[in-house]
């Protein structure tokens, strides 16, 4: 955070026009401390400026957003990543989340919503777009019946609780955290903790299904 409490943000996207658009949409709500249009430059500059949040394009030449996360995460764990994408291909989205992004939003997201997402990620929460929520529901639902035979399941990590499922469903239906809290009569903090729990499962689950599912899904 800077002196005024606004999160310091770094933009990584190979499209100049898009960076300019995001910059103007974010406005004064955040402090943009830098931008980069390719993977090596991004890694260098992020390590130098240490922003709170990196807004990261999933698709870029030279390994994409995933490569940036994998380079920064081990040396600067405090830097958080929010993935932005137009692609919506599940393998990309799941890949960037499993690499360590705290959230994923589509590029069609409105300005205020993007600011909200950045603030949330800066505060340590997870941000799920409806599509990501849908992917997670799909991935955790598509468990083959013979799964138990293929390897041990960690019940803690490899299953979604009914409540988490409910929250994800509402996100997929386009509800905001506030609306979800009202719908389920729980606090916003509880919604946030459910989403963070799901994010953790998504990142740590040993289900090889998850990656396999994401790749297969693209082939359909």
């Amino acid at each position, binding site marked *: 955070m800077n002196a005024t409490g606004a999160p310091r943000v770094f933009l990584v996207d190979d499209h100049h026009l898009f960076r300019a658009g995001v910059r103007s949409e974010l406005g004064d709500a955040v402090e943009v401390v830098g931008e980069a249009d390719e993977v090596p430059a991004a890694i260098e500059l992020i390590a130098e400026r240490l922003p709170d949040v990196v807004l990261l394009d999933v698709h870029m030449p030279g390994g994409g957003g995933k490569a940036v996360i994998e380079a920064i995460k081990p040396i600067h764990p405090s830097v958080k990543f929010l993935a932005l994408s137009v692609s919506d291909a599940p393998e990309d989205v799941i890949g960037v989340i499993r690499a360590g992004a705290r959230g994923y939003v589509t590029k*069609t997201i409105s300005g205020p919503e993007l600011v909200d997402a950045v603030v949330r990620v800066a505060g340590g929460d997870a941000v799920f777009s409806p599509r990501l929520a*849908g992917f997670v529901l799909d991935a955790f*639902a598509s468990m083959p019946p013979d799964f138990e035979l293929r390897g041990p399941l960690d019940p803690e990590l490899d299953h979604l609780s009914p409540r988490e499922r409910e929250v994800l469903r509402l996100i997929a*239906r*386009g509800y905001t955290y506030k609306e979800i809290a009202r719908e389920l009569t729980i606090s916003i903090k509880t919604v946030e903790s459910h989403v963070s729990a799901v994010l953790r499962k998504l990142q740590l689950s040993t289900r090889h299904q998850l990656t396999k599912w994401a790749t297969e899904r693209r082939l*359909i």
Partner: protein
Amino acid sequence: MVRGRFYRSREDRILAGIAGGLAARLGRDVTVVRIVLVLTTLVSGLGVVCYVLAWLLLPAEGSSETIAARAISDRQGITLVLALVPVLVLVLLIASVLHASFASSWGPPLLISAAGLVLVYRNAEDDERAWLVDSARALLQLGAEPRQAPRVFMVRLGTGILLFVLGVFVIADGALSHSWLRPLGGTLLLIAATVVLLGPWWLRLALDLVRERQARIRAEERADMAARVHDSVLQTLAMIQRSADQPLEVAKLARAQERELRSWLFEGRAPGSFGAEGALTLSAGVEQIERDVEAAHGIAVDAVTVGDSPLDDELRALLAAGREATVNAAKWSGATSVSIYVEVEPKRVSMFVRDRGAGFDSDAIAGDRKGIAESIRGRMQRNGGTAVIRSVPGEGTEVELSLPRHPGRA
């Protein structure tokens, strides 16, 4: 209807629709079931009793209440039924005195059936009672057409009665020498009498059934057509009115509509339908809605699909209703984006269409707003699904469409 639940069919019925319901339950042909029922009746009369009991105890298709449930509180009806007990005793007494095994075996089932029918008649729903009265009246007139010449009817009546009396006489009288000819000839004469007397009644009953079914199919087709015309033509006209000051836009809309209408009328492709050349799976259909609505209305549509399924007629109807809801949101909500969420579960497919627009007071929408009533609710109901519309003025609208699925049924 779910196979496994036993109900009285409204589609396949001559009297109560029990054969139809049984056939649906067993997965057999209804004619086979009817023949078996008639045979059990001829053997002992037990078939009639079972039939009447089933009539009392089974709910009609689409209803949850049985006639018996209503009959319990029908005191007068129960009194009437109890009054039949002494008659039964009397019949049995007379039968034993006369050694008429026929009367003692047939008397009880017929009387029990009569008692059941009294309860059925008194407690059936109005439409079923009307149907009963109609059939019974036709039976009393022996199926004669009202405009038929009385002389023809009298000749038929005379012939029928003559054949009947002859048949009874031949069976009962021992004058004929060949013992095996007697029952055979008598039975043939009785059958001939039945055909002459009751044949026209059965014929009329069957014709009425066919006519009723055709009328219902026509009504459903009309509703479907109205929904489709609404989806395409009326929607386009509304859009043309809204962009009346933009001639180019109007021309574009009109051309597109003309193309669509032509392909529907002359090539049999329904507007907004997902035919052979269109989507084959639910998720592809959702993507098509996403694309089409974005292109036609310049609004962002975010669709999320969890799970997938090949398209069948029910899912196509779900998609058509969902498309209607999306178009409505695009046109009226004033929001910049619409969210669609589709989830395929083993026993249900749900579709949510949500906007954060103006919303509306659902009570204030006039009943003639075809969009919601026909294209969404009616369409879902015709396919066994439901549509729930939640809207708060100022906060937006969410349409929830839900369709039960029957795994294992093709």
